[in-house]
């Protein structure tokens, strides 16, 4: 736990949101993003991780017309306005899907599984879906 004071004089905690699922097919990605924005509004120390099919959430050029769903990927670009600047993408997940960081809608930090393990161990609250 960090010593910084924030929302209502409470101690600021490190909240990590782990996105494991593709952006469409299930609602997890969309609803998880809503939670990230709320945690940021509470002035918590928020980071967001993309692993497994979760890396597809950030893919550029999403076209959802054919499935009748809202393309919510532009919302990731608004995270910066909420001071959510720590976005981690697991290197192995990206490579396994033939993707590179240049193909993502926002700048991210690409980290190995090993590095991610260390970052995760430093968190107070880890929410995964």
């Amino acid at each position, binding site marked *: 736990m960090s010593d910084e004071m924030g929302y209502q004089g409470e101690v600021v905690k490190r909240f990590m949101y782990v996105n494991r699922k593709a952006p469409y097919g299930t609602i997890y990605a969309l609803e998880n993003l*809503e939670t990230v924005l709320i945690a940021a509004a*509470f002035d918590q120390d928020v980071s967001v991780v993309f692993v497994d099919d979760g890396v597809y959430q950030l893919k550029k050029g999403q076209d959802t017309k054919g499935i009748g769903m809202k393309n919510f990927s532009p919302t990731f670009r608004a995270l910066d306005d909420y001071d959510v600047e720590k976005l981690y993408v697991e290197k192995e997940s990206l490579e396994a899907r033939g993707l590179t960081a240049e193909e993502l809608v926002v700048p991210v930090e690409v980290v190995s599984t090993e590095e991610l393990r260390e970052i995760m161990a430093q968190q107070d609250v880890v929410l995964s*879906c």
Partner: protein
Amino acid sequence: MKFGILVNEGPFTHQASDSAYRFAEAALAKGHEVWRVFFYHDGVNNSNKLAEPQSDDRNLVKLWSELGREHDLDLVVCVAAALRRGIKDELLAAGFRISGLGQLVEAGIQADRLVVFGD
């Protein structure tokens, strides 16, 4: 220890809510505190009092309600997720209340551990 519990799945399709319920029950039995249970995603369906499983099966909605009454638990259903799924005040089983996602963040801040139950 002070626990926060997050339930991300509805009753029956997934085991998450059963596991969360058993975790809460066990933690309380050991003298720990359950500061809040937050229901998100399809987890909001755990609050629907119209659920009527077969008589030889467990009724998770009722089980959560009863545990809530016994231990004065704060059972919070996310408003955004609930509205999407047609869960409104008039459908809520006893002990549940509808509120915002801020209540989940607050649980993360206040609890020593936030334990997530999902798929």
